[in-house]
């Protein structure tokens, strides 16, 4: 399973390295969202401004929006040239395919989160603190996000209205992750990481649950898509 996962992840990342869609379109999109939040919530900058206070939540909403695009991209490359048939006929373990696709997505998202963190710190004037908790919740939240994204990516890839269906399925499912990640970032940035540990646990539980669900369910879903 792990060997298959590595193969699939390598394939997805190679495609990304050659096509540069994530870095050329998804990351800029997330930056645009961050800028739009800045315009919507007022230009006032400084400690205590709305933007600065809402920075953790805005960061995670931007990540969520970008995740949908990344998931759509990840399954768009399977839809072309009968790639999905190839994947099904390849004899790879479905659980491995799931883990591989999720890992490729996750590593792209982690890069995006690093870029966005810089943008949020800079544009919203928020001093970064509690680096370990920030990084930990990024990893746990991303694992949960890509698990849900990959499950629903393959569910909606069979639908004719896949562009609109995926966000409808994806956002309610990851709402707990948004809540926990925001709370944990809030605690870290406020300099009280002790309050964020519980939320980090919540994130880890969701990540494990969703990943387990995906590993079990991906086989039949891929067959049907």
């Amino acid at each position: 399973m792990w060997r298959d996962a590595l193969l699939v992840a390598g394939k997805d990342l190679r495609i990304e390295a050659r096509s540069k869609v994530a870095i050329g379109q998804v990351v800029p999109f997330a930056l645009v969202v961050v800028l739009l939040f800045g315009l919507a919530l007022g230009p006032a900058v400084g400690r205590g401004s709305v933007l600065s206070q809402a920075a953790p939540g805005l960061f995670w909403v931007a990540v969520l929006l970008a995740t949908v695009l990344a998931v759509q991209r990840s399954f768009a490359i399977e839809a072309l040239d009968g790639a999905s048939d190839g994947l099904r006929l390849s004899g790879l373990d479905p659980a491995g395919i799931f883990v591989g696709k999720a890992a490729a997505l996750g590593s792209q998202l982690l890069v995006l989160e690093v870029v966005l963190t810089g943008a949020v710190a800079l544009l919203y004037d928020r001093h970064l603190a509690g680096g370990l908790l920030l990084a930990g919740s990024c990893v746990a939240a991303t694992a949960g996000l890509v698990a849900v994204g990959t499950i629903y990516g393959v569910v909606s890839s069979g639908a004719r209205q896949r562009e609109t269906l995926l966000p409808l399925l994806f956002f309610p499912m990851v709402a707990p992750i948004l809540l926990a990640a925001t709370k944990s970032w809030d605690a870290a940035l406020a300099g009280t990481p002790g309050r964020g540990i519980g939320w980090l646990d919540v994130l880890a539980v969701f990540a494990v649950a969703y990943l387990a669900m995906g590993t079990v369910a991906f086989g039949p879903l891929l067959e049907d898509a």
Partner: protein
Amino acid sequence: MSLTTTTTESGTTPARAGRTGGEPPSTERAAPKPHASGRGRARPLADVALSAVGACALVGVAVTVWLGLWVTPPDRFMGNLVRLLYIHPSIAWVMYICYGVAFLSSLAFLWPRTRSLRFDKLAGASSEVGVVFTGLTLVTGSIWGRPTWGTWWTWDPLLTTTALLFVLYLGYLTVRRIPGEPEVCARRSAIAALVAFVDVPICYFSVLWWRSLHQAPSIADPVTGKTYIHGSMAWTLLLSFVSFTLVYVWLVARRYRLFVLAEREDDEGLAQALAERRAESSQVRA
């Protein structure tokens, strides 16, 4: 007795009379029957039972309204607002039943030994009713929240998770409509139902996990069994739970039958179209 019921069936419902005739076999009917007690013949009996359930539900709701609005006394603290007690908790209770049944029947579909499209239809019917009742829960709760909490909506964990349930299952119903082979659709929907169900226990336990505005269930103490509500109020509350549960049973049974009829229309529509085309071609030849 069985003979008479069969004749009345074929006599009263011409649509069903063709059932014994040449009908294309479908996976649904070939599948093992969980309630295989002569289902084809027991249909009129089921119809009668269903009508009885519907009538009971109607009477129960009517009596609940009468008791709730006129007979029961106003509450010491909440005054007349307490009358919402006779609809809001029971609607929320039905919502949990809906999603519980959808979850269990999706599991039953995925379990190879009980795999049957019946369970897929049951899950579809139950979750559709569930979405309606989730909407009703939100609306009645909102109406209750305005005078007691001073706001229509608050970001309380229970309210938020209930709103999420509403959207999650709307998504599930959309997944059900993705076209495909019945078996494929059913499996996809069953998995989606299991995924969506994650929120249900979170929603239910949120009042216990987080201290929040919405109170924990306070009809009876789960540990001591001591009830906090007495006399006519307790009876009305009990009646409301029973009658809304009957409403649920009736709605799900009707919706289930609608699924079956829609499927039969698909089958017979195809057969009919084929027959018409054949008749046309024989006319042309003659």
